[in-house]
């Protein structure tokens, strides 16, 4: 019964168990509490009360054998009390009592997992696209507004307001907590995948993990991607997303040398990559490909696989890389892909071909403040001998870089340019 008594500090143990349950089960409990009422905010309130009760109760009486079930029991009691208090009526109370019965009669250890439905509710197309990723972080993972705000470079007050608005819309507009029907599933799933990838990208922008919040975000995103694969083991794009993220994660540490300087992929030592993660990524990609339904995330994962393979074997595979970029551009055209494609093209056909491929994007407002675009242009111009133009592009890239290591890297590159005097 008592996990706490093993430790000299029951408070600390109770807290760490509560934190572990929160991380593992938060979304599961919110999903169960909010499923019928669609009231996410009320579910979160009830759950917060339950966690507070746990921290008061567990050090005194020992941690329960099934902490998740304990929290659920307290939380739904709180939810029922809250509903009664607001005198909202019997029907809602009945729903909650029904839910309580359902949980009591199922094996307490095996609470039904409705997180997939919760993920679909949080990424519903009727919600503002920009709030879906933050909403998912809060509702499924239990991250607080302050953490989310710092990850998305906004104020906690502003993000709280937008999160509240989204939750109110879910409740009042009748956004369903259901997994969409077969024909609708691919489109709706794309939003879920997009939101999870959004979490990872936020985490990725902090390369060394100085910023603990962002570093954790990469871990949270991997947790969500693993969860999605557990919930939808047959979906090739869910597999593709997890594969893509593992490929990136495996090379995460190699992006910096011992002095904290930026190391581009071509200069990284493959021996420093996480081999087990790469194996897992490769396996997932192979598993996805057996379904023979191609998609954006599988293609992006396949590109990562090709890059990794080339670096490991030192055999150029730019034809294969170009084929993948062409397929990706056809499936999900974006200026960001065009930039990456151009860099691969430069390796195969030279810098001028790459510059020609980028020419149509010269005035694209989406690239005007996209640092990698200017860095790519600078690099290509330098290689083609257009020194003056290269310097201008380096200036732009340096001015737009937010990562000090990348800024230093670009400044060094610029300093290596021949003098134009």
């Amino acid at each position: 019964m008592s996990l706490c008594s093993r430790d000299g500090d029951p408070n600390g143990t109770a807290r760490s168990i509560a934190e572990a349950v929160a991380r593992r089960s938060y979304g599961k409990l919110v999903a169960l509490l909010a499923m019928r009422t669609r009231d996410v905010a009320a579910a979160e309130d009830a759950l917060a009360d339950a966690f507070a009760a746990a921290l008061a109760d567990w050090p005194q009486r020992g941690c329960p054998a099934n902490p998740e079930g304990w929290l659920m029991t307290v939380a739904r009691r709180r939810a029922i009390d809250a509903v009664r208090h607001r005198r909202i009526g019997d029907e809602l109370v009945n729903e909650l009592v029904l839910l309580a019965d359902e949980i009591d009669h199922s094996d307490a250890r095996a609470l039904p997992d409705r997180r997939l439905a919760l993920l679909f509710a949080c990424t519903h197309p009727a919600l503002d696209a920009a709030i879906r990723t933050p909403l998912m972080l809060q509702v499924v993972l239990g991250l607080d507004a302050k953490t989310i705000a710092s990850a998305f470079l906004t104020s906690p007050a502003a993000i709280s307001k937008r999160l509240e608005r989204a939750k109110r819309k879910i409740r009042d507009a009748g956004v369903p907590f259901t997994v969409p029907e077969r024909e609708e599933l691919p489109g709706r799933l794309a939003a879920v995948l997009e939101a999870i990838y959004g979490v990872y990208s936020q985490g990725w922008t902090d390369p060394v993990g100085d910023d603990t919040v962002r570093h954790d975000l990469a871990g949270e995103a991997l947790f969500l991607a693993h969860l999605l694969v557990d919930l939808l083991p047959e979906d090739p794009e869910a597999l593709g997303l997890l594969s893509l993220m593992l490929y990136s994660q495996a090379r995460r540490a190699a992006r910096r040398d011992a002095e904290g300087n930026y190391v581009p992929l071509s200069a990284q030592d493959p021996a420093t990559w996480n081999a087990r993660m790469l194996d897992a990524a490769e396996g997932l990609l192979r598993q996805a490909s057996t379904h023979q339904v191609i998609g954006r995330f599988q293609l992006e994962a396949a590109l990562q696989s090709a890059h990794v393979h080339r670096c490991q074997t030192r055999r150029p595979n730019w034809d294969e890389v170009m084929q993948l970029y062409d397929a990706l551009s056809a499936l999900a055209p974006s200026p960001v892909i065009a930039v990456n494609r151009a860099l691969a093209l430069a390796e195969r056909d030279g810098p001028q071909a790459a510059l020609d491929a980028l020419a149509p994007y010269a005035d694209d407002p989406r690239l005007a403040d996209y640092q990698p675009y200017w860095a790519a242009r600078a690099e290509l111009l330098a290689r083609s001998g257009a020194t003056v133009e290269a310097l201008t592009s380096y200036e732009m890239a340096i001015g737009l870089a937010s990562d000090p290591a990348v800024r230093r890297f670009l400044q060094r590159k610029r300093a290596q340019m021949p003098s134009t005097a």
Partner: protein
Amino acid sequence: MQYLLMIYSAESEWKQLGDGERQQRVAAYQAYTESLKKAEVVVGMNRLQHASTATTVRIIDGKPQVLDGPYSDSKEQLAGYYLIDAPNLDAAITWAARCPGASHGAMEVRPIWTMPYESAGSA
């Protein structure tokens, strides 16, 4: 839950339609109405007269101020509505997408306000 599906469309576009096209559109609305009735989801519906017939009223300094014209001066105006009963927003959106108004204009889907004790658990 009940949802109001509001049809917003450019009236100028209707005026430019030929007779055949108008008949076609009216027939499309009739078919849509029929399918709503068959599915037993429709609670009420109406087509509105042109926005040029609208009058806007508000109380200013305790006196009613009456103005000729619709409240909002946009190109696309409220042209009609369907009031439907649907289990959730997804079902309402599905019905809105089937309405001819979604093709020639835009549909706004709004849940109907209910007193809290009436709203529970209808999903």
